[in-house]
């Protein structure tokens, strides 16, 4: 059947509900807003990726010979700002969360659809500030904006960069408010709290962190702007201020921000693992408690970024202890995912490959977190490539793997099209190896003392940098592949059935892509992950009886 024929046969759905630009830019449909967000974060993903590609190229040789040190500093700063606030924080919540949260709980839309659109416009406004920053020559403070460098010394576009982050912060606060209200108020009859899919729990926990942490960042950066622009003394030590206060306030947000990125990723992986292992999730209620525990304990650990900052030794121990405690629920989640595979019937489609990648990489990221929680080890490896490798294992190995996993899992639902499975599996494997190739050498050179944010470096580290840059090239190709086959799939892919993976979950009960109101008939709510009966035998082929 030709593509045109299949298009005419298409049932009414949200994609076909108006095709003018206005029908997209003034939409209040959560699914369309999710697409708008997806377009935004994809653009920024490639902006941030381009910046870091130049950085990796520069680092192939020990001498800083490709770009000037000033340019280099601006490149890694823009990479950090863009990737953290314009890609990772909105990535899963604003796209999949927006698209799926109402459908998964059986609602017609988010609680406040117009507020949702406002979130997107705030994101775009923040993005505009960032683009202005780039046009104005960039910013060189690092994504951490440490004072007094950012307020008294840098002569780059700190003000617009900080303003962009503040504005995009309000976007994530409003998204968080919307998600929390939706989860509380719009669950379909029968959808009790302990029947919620773990993805919904992940989004809910993340929303709590967004709402309670983001405003602190907004105010901190507002203080930076006030000190820099109005010359008000706040953090400036020569006028009595304390730069460590900035670090406390900054990390009060920015450590929980890591959990903003990883909690939804955990939700995505839970959905995928259960579906492709055809198994009820092992320890569902423990998984829920762990998500909430991570979200809450995650607020108590920020000081582990400050072990060498001049913070008191007593505070170091307190934060160290809390950091060990937050490792516990994360570890339990990994055990539970692994145990879910036991007696499963596992197939290795692309989403599952990404989920496997997540399990391995997140485990490495989490375990290296133990090193950083141990004060004497942290003193040696903090501010080195060890830390870079650690948080990329969590944020890229974890969150980005899950993002791609989710994209491959829900793509048929979102677009109504299938993608070429073998290409997708190839990209997943390439991404996994490219990633390890890029970041594993960084653990070693970090331990050997290679400081981060260095434009030129002693020659003995070159071998690791070359390995890392080679891996980054592979990783870059692996990121471009999905762009190509998804673009192809969107126009020419095979029409997707309502439930291509035979998954449970309400989103699979409606058509692909869903109609504007999400459901034609009221969906039937059951326990989540009913992939096999609770009691009794299961077919030896692993099929449901």
């Amino acid at each position, binding site marked *: 059947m030709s593509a045109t024929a299949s298009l005419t046969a298409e049932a009414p759905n949200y994609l076909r509900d108006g095709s003018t630009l206005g029908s997209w830019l003034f939409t209040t449909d959560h699914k369309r807003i999710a697409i708008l967000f997806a377009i935004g974060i994809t653009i920024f993903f490639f902006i941030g990726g381009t910046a870091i590609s130049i950085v990796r190229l520069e680092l192939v040789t020990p001498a800083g010979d490709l770009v000037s040190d000033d340019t280099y500093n601006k490149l890694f700063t823009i990479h950090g700002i863009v990737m953290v606030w314009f890609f990772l924080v909105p990535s899963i919540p604003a796209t999949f969360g927006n698209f799926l949260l109402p459908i998964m709980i059986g609602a017609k839309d988010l609680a406040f*659809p117009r507020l949702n659109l406002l979130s997107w416009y705030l994101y775009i406004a923040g993005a505009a500030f960032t683009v202005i920053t780039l046009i104005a020559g960039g910013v060189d403070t690092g994504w951490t904006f440490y004072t007094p460098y950012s307020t008294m010394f840098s002569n780059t576009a700190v003000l617009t960069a900080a303003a962009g982050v503040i504005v995009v912060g309000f976007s994530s606060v409003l998204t968080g*408010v919307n998600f*929390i209200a939706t989860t509380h108020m719009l669950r379909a009859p029968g959808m009790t709290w302990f029947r919620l899919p773990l993805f919904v729990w992940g989004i809910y926990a993340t929303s709590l962190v967004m*709402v309670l942490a983001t405003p602190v960042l907004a*105010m901190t950066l507002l*203080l930076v702007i006030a000190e820099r622009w109005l010359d*008000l003394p706040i953090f400036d030590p020569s006028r009595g201020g304390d730069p460590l206060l900035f670090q406390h306030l900054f990390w009060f947000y920015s450590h929980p921000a890591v959990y903003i990125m990883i909690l939804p990723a955990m939700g995505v992986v839970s959905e995928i693992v259960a579906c492709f292992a055809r198994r009820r999730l092992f320890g569902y209620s423990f998984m829920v408690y762990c998500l909430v525990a991570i979200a809450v304990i995650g607020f108590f650990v920020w000081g582990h970024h400050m072990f060498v900052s001049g913070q008191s030794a007593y505070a170091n121990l307190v934060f160290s202890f809390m950091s060990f405690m937050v490792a516990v629920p994360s570890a339990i989640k990994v055990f539970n995912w692994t145990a879910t595979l036991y007696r499963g019937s596992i197939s290795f489609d692309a989403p599952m490959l990404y989920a496997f990648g997540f399990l391995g990489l997140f485990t490495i990221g989490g375990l290296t977190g133990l090193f950083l929680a141990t004060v004497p080890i942290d003193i040696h490896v903090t501010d080195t490539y060890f830390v870079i490798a650690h948080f990329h294992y969590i944020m890229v190995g974890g969150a980005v793997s899950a993002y791609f996993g989710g994209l491959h899992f829900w793509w048929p639902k979102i677009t109504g099209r299938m993608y070429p499975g073998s290409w997708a599996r190839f990209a997943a494997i390439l991404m996994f190896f490219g990633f390890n190739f890029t970041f594993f050498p960084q653990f070693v050179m970090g331990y050997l003392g290679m400081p981060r944010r260095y434009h030129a470096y002693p020659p003995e580290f070159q071998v690791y940098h070359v390995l890392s840059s080679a891996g980054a090239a592979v990783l870059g190709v692996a990121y471009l592949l999905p762009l190509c086959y998804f673009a192809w799939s969107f126009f020419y892919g095979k029409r997707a059935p309502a439930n291509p993976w035979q998954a449970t979950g309400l989103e699979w009960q409606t058509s692909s892509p869903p109609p504007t109101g999400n459901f034609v008939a009221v969906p039937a709510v059951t326990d989540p992950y009913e992939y096999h009966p609770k009691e009794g035998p299961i077919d030896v082929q692993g099929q449901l009886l």
Partner: protein
Amino acid sequence: MSERVFLRTPWETLARQHVAVSFGMWVFLASEILLFAGLFGGYSIYRSLYPHGFLAAGRETDIVYGSVNTAILMTSSLTIAVAGRFARAGFGAAARRLLIATIALGLLFLVLKGFEYREDLEKHLFPGPDFPLAQKGAQLFFSLYWIMTGVHAIHVSCGLIAVGRLAFLSRRRVDWLWGSGSEEATALYWHLVDVIWIVLYPLLYLTGRSGHG
């Protein structure tokens, strides 16, 4: 009056919509409180580091403006609270008049704040080379003073826009005030602006009044 006019997309009943709107606003208010948390944190740390500077600087703020403005904001809280109760009881016209009183009080607050700012600037109380106090920490106090009151004034302005929107949209049909649920949310926001001022007042205006502490 029919519910249908006010019912918005995802909701089945107006009652549920109202609960959700005010719950959503409460969640947002939690976020707003955390917005000020960093300022309160900075204030506490610097006050404990420079107690003398803070007491000396606290004496320089204008307690008359501060106290009158506190009273004004508390009164505006009363008017908007009663407006909501009137609207629910069906006294729409009276409710609207109270909303307009709230707007007037809010504007009065901002005007007085503007006069106060002018006097502060005449006394060179903006941190900089002409700053009159030598004690260490006094400039930090005034940095926080300007930022705290400035951010609060922005909140008052946002609140005024929201209350103004209510007054404007209810000009034809006063039952709109009750029906949409936005009266409740707007009032909650306005009350929070009041609560934050109530906390700022002792920090900025009552500090150091009892003499050389």
